[in-house]
C-alpha cells in the first residue's frame, strides 16, 4: 500500500510531487539529508516531525521558495526552482508565517488575491467555506489569530489550486475551529485537490491524511497509512484489568481470545477491563525518539 520510492528510483512523472535525493544545507547544518518522496494526485499527505526535522524546508523547496543543494524535485511536472507563472497559478500555498498584515478588509484581500488567477473561486463562496462570512467587511488587522489563519487558508484556495500546501494550518485554532477546518479539507479533497499538510497534531494527521510521512533528522523515517504507521496495526494489544485488588496488564497478539479467557474466569464483568493498541502518538514518539 504505502509504496515508497527508494534512493536512485527515477522520478514518478504521474505524481503531484516527486522528490529524489533531496539535500539542503544551511552552513554546517544539513536540514534535509537525502529525502525521497512521492505524493500521488488527489491524496492528502501529512508530513509529521519534530521542530527542526526539515518539514518546512522540504515544503518550501517544493513551493519554489528555497534552492536545493542536491537532488531532483518535480511538482506538477515542473522543477520548482524555475517554476513559471502558469505553474504557480496551479498551486495554493498556506505558509507557516502567514500572509502578512493588511489594512484591507477580508473580502478585499480575497478579491485581490483572486485577481492574480485565471479562474478563481468567488470570494464570498470562499469566505463561506472557511467560515469568515461574518468578518467579510472587517480589516484583516483586527482578526483574531484563528480567524487570521482561516483567512490565510482562504487566500490559499481562492485560485482554485490543483495542489494545496498547508504548513501547520491549524496552529491557534480552538477544537471547534479545527473540526470545521477538517471538514473544509475533506470537501477540497472531494473536489480532487491534492494536499501536502504539515502538522504537529497527530489527531489531525490521523483524521485527514491518506498517508503519513514521518520526517526526522532530514530523512523520511517511514511512510504509511495512519493506521499502519510503525507497525501499529499488527502491534500487540495491551489488555488491562483488576484482579485480587491489583492492576494487571498483558500484552497479547490475540486480544479477543485473551478477553474470552478472562471473561470465563470472572463471574460477571471483568473489573476495569480495557484493550488498547498503541496510538499514533505512541508510535510517532518512538520513531522520532529512535532517531535522536
Amino acid at each position, binding site marked *: 500500500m504505502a509504496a515508497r520510492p527508494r534512493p536512485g528510483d527515477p522520478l514518478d512523472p504521474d505524481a503531484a510531487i516527486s522528490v529524489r535525493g533531496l539535500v539542503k544545507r544551511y552552513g554546517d547544518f544539513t536540514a534535509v539529508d537525502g529525502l525521497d518522496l512521492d505524493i500521488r494526485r488527489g491524496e492528502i499527505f501529512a508530513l509529521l516531525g519534530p521542530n527542526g526535522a526539515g518539514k518546512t524546508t522540504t515544503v518550501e523547496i517544493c*513551493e*519554489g*521558495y528555497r534552492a536545493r543543494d542536491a537532488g531532483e524535485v518535480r511538482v506538477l511536472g515542473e522543477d520548482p526552482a524555475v517554476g513559471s*507563472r*502558469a505553474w*504557480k*497559478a*496551479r*498551486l495554493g*500555498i498556506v*505558509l507557516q*508565517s*502567514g*500572509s*502578512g*498584515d*493588511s*489594512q*484591507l478588509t477580508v473580502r*478585499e484581500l480575497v478579491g*485581490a*488575491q483572486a*485577481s*492574480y*488567477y*485565471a*479562474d478563481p*473561486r468567488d470570494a464570498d*463562496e470562499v469566505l463561506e*467555506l472557511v467560515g469568515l462570512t461574518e468578518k467579510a467587511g472587517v*480589516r484583516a488587522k483586527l482578526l483574531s489569530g484563528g480567524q487570521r489563519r482561516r483567512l490565510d487558508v482562504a*487566500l490559499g484556495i481562492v*485560485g*482554485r*489550486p*490543483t495542489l494545496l500546501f498547508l504548513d501547520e494550518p491549524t496552529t491557534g485554532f480552538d477544537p471547534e475551529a479545527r473540526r470545521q477546518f477538517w471538514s473544509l479539507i475533506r*470537501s477540497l479533497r472531494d*473536489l*480532487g*485537490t491534492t494536499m501536502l499538510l504539515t502538522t504537529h497534531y497527530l489527531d489531525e494527521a490521523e483524521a485527514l491524511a491518506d498517508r503519513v510521512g514521518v520526517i526526522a533528522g532530514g530523512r523520511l523515517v517511514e511512510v504509511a497509512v495512519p493506521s499502519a504507521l510503525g507497525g501499529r496495526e499488527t502491534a500487540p494489544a495491551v489488555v488491562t484489568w483488576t484482579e485480587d485488588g491489583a492492576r494487571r496488564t498483558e500484552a497479547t497478539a490475540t486480544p479477543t481470545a485473551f478477553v474470552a479467557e478472562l471473561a470465563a474466569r470472572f463471574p460477571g464483568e471483568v473489573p476495569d477491563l480495557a484493550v488498547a493498541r498503541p496510538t499514533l502518538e505512541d508510535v510517532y514518539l518512538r520513531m522520532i525518539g529512535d532517531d535522536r
Partner: protein
Amino acid sequence: MTATRETTQLPSLPSVYRSRSSVELKEFFRQRESVVFTLLLPVLLLVVFGAVLNFDLRDGVSFTQYFMAGIIAAGILGASFQNMAISIATERSDGTLKHLAGTPMPPSAYFVGKMVQVLAVTLISVVVLLLVGVVFYGIDLPTGTDWLTFTWVAGLGAAACTLLGIAISSIAKNGRSASATVTPFALLLQFISGIFFQFSEIPTWMQTFAALFPLKWMAQGLRSVFLPDALAADEPTGSWELGRVALVLGIWCVLGLVLCVRTFRWQDR
C-alpha cells in the same frame, strides 16, 4: 462549490496592475500613522514655519516663498524615500512579500502598485502644500514654463527617492528598524539641504555632504521655480544649475535601480 479545473489563460498585466494599485492606495490611505506622518507633517511644518519665520530674504521675497520650495522637496522625500523604505521593510518582515511571491502575481505588478501609491501621495502632498501656501501665506505660484521645470524636478526626484527607498528597505530588519534608521537620516538631510534654513547659511563642508544626495538638488531645482531669478545669486555657484540638477537626480535614478535589482528580496533572510 465547483470542481478543480486547470486553465491556462492568466489575467492580463493591466488588470493585475489595476488590482495592485488599488491595494496599495488602500494600504496607504487607511493607515493613520502614514497619512499623518507623510502628508500632514509637511503641512504643519509649513504652517508653523510660515507663521514664525515671517521675514523677508531680500527684494521683497519672503522666507516662506523660499521655504515653499524646500517643504515641497521634503514632502516628496517623505512620500517616496521614507514611505518606500518603511513600508517595504514592514511587508518583508511580516510575510506579505513572501506570500505574494508564492502567487502568480507578476513581480512587476508589485512595483507598479508602489509607483502608483508614490505618485498619488506625492500629488496630494504637493497640491495641499501649494493650497496652504497660497491661502495662508500669499505664496506666488509658478507661471508658464516654470510649471514644466516643477514637473520634471519633482518627477525625477520622486523617481530617484522611490528607488533608493526600495533599495534601503532590503537593509532593514523590519519596519520599525527601517523607520529608526531612515527618519533621522531624512531629518538630518533636511537640515543641511536648504529646507529649514537657507542653503547659503550652511557651512561649506555640510553643503558638500548634502550635495551627494538628491534632496539638495530637488530643493534647488524647485527654488528656481518659486524664486525670482535674481536670487540665484545666493546659490553656491550663483546659478540654479538646472542641468546639474537633472544630472545628479538622473545618476541617483540609475544607481537606485541597480541597487534595487541587486538587493531586492521577497523574503527575510
